[in-house]
């Protein structure tokens, strides 16, 4: 339990620094809205087609916004040598992983919570269903689990943040696929049974990659 408290402290540090500058949330939020609007220009068609492509647009938007906010997770640490500071603290590397992951998860959830109603507004869709919120929550956990690991990996290379999408997008492709199909079913009014298999894949992904990233994280940030 003490490990969890230490992790929450690390996450809280990120939240505090973000609340003071508000740089990440504001820029990622504007980016998200711009992507949604740009997609609307790309698919300039009637409502029926919009209903078909809406889940895809939603999840592409969240994937790209996720990459943007995950990048931030470790870039600031690297710039101010905070990462070395964190490693010198009496916390295990795994606790650092959990803390950073919780922080990134919170950021992405906040951005999604603001973006979803606006998405509903722009696309005339009932996205505020419980099903869609559960799908979004579970998929974001998967994004945060893998993204935190890869963000730490990316900042240790020469190309920094440009590597993150190359690493991140192929690995989360299966949960994007599952989230899009589950969202499509949820938007067309399907009940929980129909979503079960897609949700199962997302949950399996979350569990497997939370464990794997937890185990492997120490190799990524050691000198």
């Amino acid at each position: 339990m003490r490990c969890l408290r230490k992790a929450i402290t690390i996450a809280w540090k990120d939240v505090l620094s973000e609340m003071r500058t508000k740089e990440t949330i504001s820029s990622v939020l504007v980016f998200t809205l711009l992507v949604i609007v740009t997609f609307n220009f790309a698919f300039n068609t009637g409502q029926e087609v919009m209903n078909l492509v809406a889940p895809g647009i939603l999840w592409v938007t969240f994937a790209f916004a996720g990459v943007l906010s995950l990048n931030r997770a470790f870039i600031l640490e690297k710039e101010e040598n905070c990462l070395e500071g964190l490693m010198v603290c009496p916390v295990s590397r795994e606790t650092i992983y959990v803390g950073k992951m919780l922080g990134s998860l919170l950021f992405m959830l906040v951005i999604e919570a603001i973006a979803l109603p606006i998405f509903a507004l722009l696309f005339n869709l009932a996205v505020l269903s419980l099903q869609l919120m559960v799908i979004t929550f579970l998929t974001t956990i998967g994004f945060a689990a893998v993204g935190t690991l890869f963000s730490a990996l990316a900042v240790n290379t020469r190309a920094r943040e440009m590597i993150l999408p190359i690493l991140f997008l192929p690995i989360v492709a299966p949960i994007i696929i599952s989230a899009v199909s589950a969202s499509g079913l949820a938007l067309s009014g399907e009940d929980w049974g129909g979503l079960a298999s897609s949700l199962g894949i997302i949950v399996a992904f979350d569990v497997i990659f939370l464990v794997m990233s937890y185990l492997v994280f120490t190799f990524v940030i050691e000198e």
Partner: protein
Amino acid sequence: MKSKILLGMSLVLMIVSLYLVFIYVPTEESMGIVQRIFYLMVPMGWLTLLAFLVVFISSILYLAQKESRWDILAYSSAEVGFVFTTLAIITGSIWAKPIWEVWWTWDPRLTATLVLWFIYAAYFVVRSFAAEESQGARLAAVVGIIGFVDIPIIAMATTLWKGLHPPLIIFQEGGIAPEMLLTLLVSIAAFTVFYFVLLRQQVLMKNDESKLRILKTYDS
């Protein structure tokens, strides 16, 4: 000596499998001659997975023991595997054109192979963009491990995704004819041995490269 045996075995198996694929096996009735690409495509797909499995195991061993020979093995297997993945996608595409009139179809297997191709590509990108060799090896090992663990999930997700649409590949019902099975198995065996030949080549080359690097530092 070992390399000669391996090379000889590979040559023999390849010639036998060529004979089987082009002369022995009867032509399949619904797809015609083009179906013979199947005997090339399945070994490619299998080798993609085998190569990645080798990357996975060597990456784990490298992170556990920090010995460079595991890293060399992982790197070599990734190189050979990447080539085979590319060929799997190309042969799959060539098969698709005469059968379904399209160069590409988002069929589960092709899609999964494409995602795997990108994971392999990420492996090499991380290696080349790392600040130094040892860090590149370490980070690439992490990518190798995470990437391999993702493969079953990718397979499940792509199969489920396309399960919502009518299936595009309709394989022979009632199992596979014995001649075809034999040809397929010999093909797989031939390519597996070939994989080990190529893997060995790469590993030896990298060993020589590292020896050369050590000699160069003595020189300067």
